[in-house]
């Protein structure tokens, strides 16, 4: 269970261009459920997702993961939690050109110190699961949009995280690929993964796989819908 308490995030505090991205958000995200943060651009979805995933620190408020407080942790502890607990899928996928698809997927596992053979075995399993077996050695820039998307998912899962965080994952996909993405999310949820997504794509928040929709506007939560 992820709990956010009185969350606030201010950018450029004290400067003329001060901007409050998240204001006073208190919300709980249940385990093994798919939760969508829904709202227009600038509503604070991405900022909130970054705070949940320990990629940004809030200005005020606390994040609890299974009762353990995360926001006060020094960076050396946060890095380990981020690496082992969360998998990230970014809007632009952020895959690295010039190296193979499987090397891209393996990258987040290198700092864990696991043997390379074990990491490669795990990446190959994920590639088989997502029908990418034949593309493992292909450079990332040679892959189609759907293949790129699945490599990004494989990379997010390489460290077997408990929570998958996806920021506008269908923003650059057509409808077919977006539905395919949601099918993969549904299967991951069935396997017990907690998924948190930020999206304003109807294909995402109208998907039957979604358990809960948290509506955001102007940095605050304006409504919740349980599917």
């Amino acid at each position, binding site marked *: 269970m992820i709990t956010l308490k009185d969350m606030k995030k201010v950018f450029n505090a004290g400067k003329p261009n001060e901007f409050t991205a998240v204001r006073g958000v208190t919300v709980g995200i249940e385990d093994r459920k798919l939760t969508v943060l829904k709202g227009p651009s600038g509503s604070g979805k991405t900022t909130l997702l970054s705070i949940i995933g320990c990629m940004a620190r809030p*200005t005020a408020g606390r994040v609890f993961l299974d009762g353990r407080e995360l926001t006060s942790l020094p960076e050396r502890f946060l890095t380990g939690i981020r690496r082992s607990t969360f998998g990230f899928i970014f809007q632009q996928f952020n895959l690295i050109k010039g190296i193979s698809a499987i090397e891209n997927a393996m990258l987040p596992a290198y700092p864990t110190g696991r043997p390379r053979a074990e990491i490669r075995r795990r990446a190959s399993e994920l590639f088989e699961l997502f029908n990418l077996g034949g593309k493992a050695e292909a450079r990332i820039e040679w892959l189609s949009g759907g293949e790129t998307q699945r490599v990004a998912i494989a990379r997010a899962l390489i460290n077997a995280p408990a929570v998958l965080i996806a920021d506008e994952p269908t923003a650059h996909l057509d409808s077919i690929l977006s539905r395919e993405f949601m099918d993969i999310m549904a299967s991951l949820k069935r396997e017990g993964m907690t998924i948190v997504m930020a999206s304003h794509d109807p294909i995402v928040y109208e998907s039957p796989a979604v358990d809960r929709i948290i509506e955001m506007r102007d940095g605050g939560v304006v409504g919740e819908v349980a599917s």
Partner: protein
Amino acid sequence: MLHPTVIALMVGSFLLCVMLLISSAHGVRILRKWDLQSGSELQLELERRTYLVSMLLAYALGFQLVSLFLFIYTADDLHRLFVGAMCAAGTLNVNPFGYPTLVLKVVNFLFAAVWLIMNYADNRAHDYPLIRKKYGYLLVMMPCILAETVLQTLYFLDMKPNVITSCCGTLFSEESSSVTSGIAALPSIPTKIAFYTATLLTIISGWMFWRSGKGGHFFSVVAPVMFVVSVAALISFISLYFYELPTHHCPFDILQREYSYIGYLMYVALLGGGATGIGVGVLMPFRRIESLSSVVPRLQRLLALISSVLYLGFALISTVRMLTTNFRLEGY
């Protein structure tokens, strides 16, 4: 005044003081406002800032450790400018601020080392268990470092080349009435017995604590005692074997080229052994803090090992010299 090491010491000490004043202001806020249960803006700001302040302070206090040796080197190097001075002992005596500065530098070396050890332990826990203690300790340490900087500045500014100073033979003779003279006049055989007993007790208890984790309290007491006994032994009889003179007790001449700069090695071993040994005792009350229960015992055992090895090194250097020189102290 324009000697490069004097400039380095002055600039370094002033920067350290500025850093300490800023850190102390932060420390006061920590002591008054720190509340880990709160998610307030102030608390989160303190958490973020303490990470930066601790890191910068660690570097600044690292300089404090080095500055002791730089100060001794400077005093030794400047002795050629003063009539009557033959080593650092004479240079430190050119005005009333030299020796107080040296004493404060040694005290602050130990203070700084203990703070660094506390900071290291605190940074290994997830919930800042020593945060108030280390900043409270910083507030105690700050006046000593400020006083050292003031004295050091006065010492360097008040150096007058026309002053005829005393050589170490006068300052560390058994006949004068100072504290060092009292140490120099200690009878050699009882002092040797005290030194080797303290060495054996420290090394054996340190080794046992490192191996089994038992006897930490005993080591915490004996390690600082060993430091004091070693300083007394160095002045009382060890130095005599290096100079092969029965009345020359100077602890500074061994820093010179004639003695292969062996003094630096001995002082690093002695001060390092003392600081790490004291660190074991300082950490003792924190073993029961939940988030430190796995960190502190391991760190203490490592510190005890380092302390024992350094003290052993000091004793070995001294003993090898005593056994290989033709000089015989007893029976003189």
